[in-house]
């Protein structure tokens, strides 16, 4: 849920990166952090295990600029992708304004992608949200690797509604900002609609 502060003339929106374990959610945030001017970003917080797997969440605040005199900030979160952290994933989705689903394009992760997408829908519903009504984009990550699922197959399983989708290599940065920009745009359009 966005937060419009007339006193400090700020607006804050929450974006959650979702997807199966090791698909590259944390890498997306690290890349964004690494390529954003220091004055536009806050500290990145990673609550992770000793083996660098996300334990609770990553958090990165970004201040992109002004719209109509309001400082526009995006709070980026990742969820832990490992199946058994489901309770934590659910908590992170609370108050979400937009979702990025990061798919792992490697063939052997197809089932994990599908399972994670189902899990996203279930967890959103528990908060009373519908994925169809939220700003939502899909990123097909790790396209630099050799053993990829065919794109048509990924699309038919993960993106039947044809929401905006991007091929990416989160490690090199390909597609990372395109993805972020797309979801941020959808959120702002939604805010505008809500303004009625």
């Amino acid at each position, binding site marked *: 849920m966005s937060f419009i502060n007339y006193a400090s003339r700020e607006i804050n929106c929450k974006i959650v990166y979702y997807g199966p374990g090791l698909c590259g959610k944390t890498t997306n945030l690290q890349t964004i952090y690494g390529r954003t001017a220091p004055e536009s970003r806050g500290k990145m917080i990673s609550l992770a295990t000793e083996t660098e797997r996300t334990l609770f969440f990553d958090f990165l605040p970004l201040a992109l600029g002004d719209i109509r005199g309001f400082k526009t900030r995006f709070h980026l979160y990742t969820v832990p992708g490992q199946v058994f952290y489901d309770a934590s994933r659910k908590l992170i989705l609370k108050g979400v304004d937009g979702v990025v689903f990061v798919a792992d394009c490697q063939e052997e992760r197809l089932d994990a992608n599908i399972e994670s997408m189902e899990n996203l829908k279930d967890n959103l519903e528990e908060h009373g949200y519908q994925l169809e009504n939220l700003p939502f984009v899909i990123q097909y990550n790790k396209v630099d690797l050799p053993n990829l699922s065919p794109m048509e197959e990924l699309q038919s399983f993960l993106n039947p509604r044809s929401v905006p989708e991007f091929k990416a290599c989160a490690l090199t940065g390909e597609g990372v900002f395109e993805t972020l920009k797309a979801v941020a745009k959808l959120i702002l*359009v939604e805010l505008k609609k809500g303004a009625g």
Partner: protein
Amino acid sequence: MFGSQSSLVMYDEEYQQIVDLAEKLLREANSKAVFLVDRNGQLMAATGETEHLDTTSLASLTAGNIAATGGLAKLIGEKEFSILFHEGEKDNIHISIVADRVILVVIFDHRSSLGLVRLRVKKASDALGDLFEELARKSSTVGTRGGPKNPFAEITDDDIDNLFR
């Protein structure tokens, strides 16, 4: 959190009242800093010795903390743990939930005590609760006739594109 509308909204008038209440609590509890954070991790107000603190991170971690312990509470059949207390070597953190809606964080050291902080927090919570009630009522009228204007009603595609230049 604030009813069914999609945004939480804060206005100058209520903001000033919230800051006043936070400052009063800061003084009366002999504390170092007082924060108000919404449950989704967004900072609403901060007062006291905040200049060396990363308040954005503090807000996000506090909300995560409340969310995690709230999950724990449900597991054992409690509704929520309404107060959390973390004791450090020098500084301590007292976290509580005001009117089911907003997280109140008080940081204090040896110049105060847990007993005093608890007492003052309780008193401040009632006044803050009333204010948030009023704010919720008011933000449900955003964009309606007579209600405050939403700044996003008139944004254009260009405004949005310009953000990413």
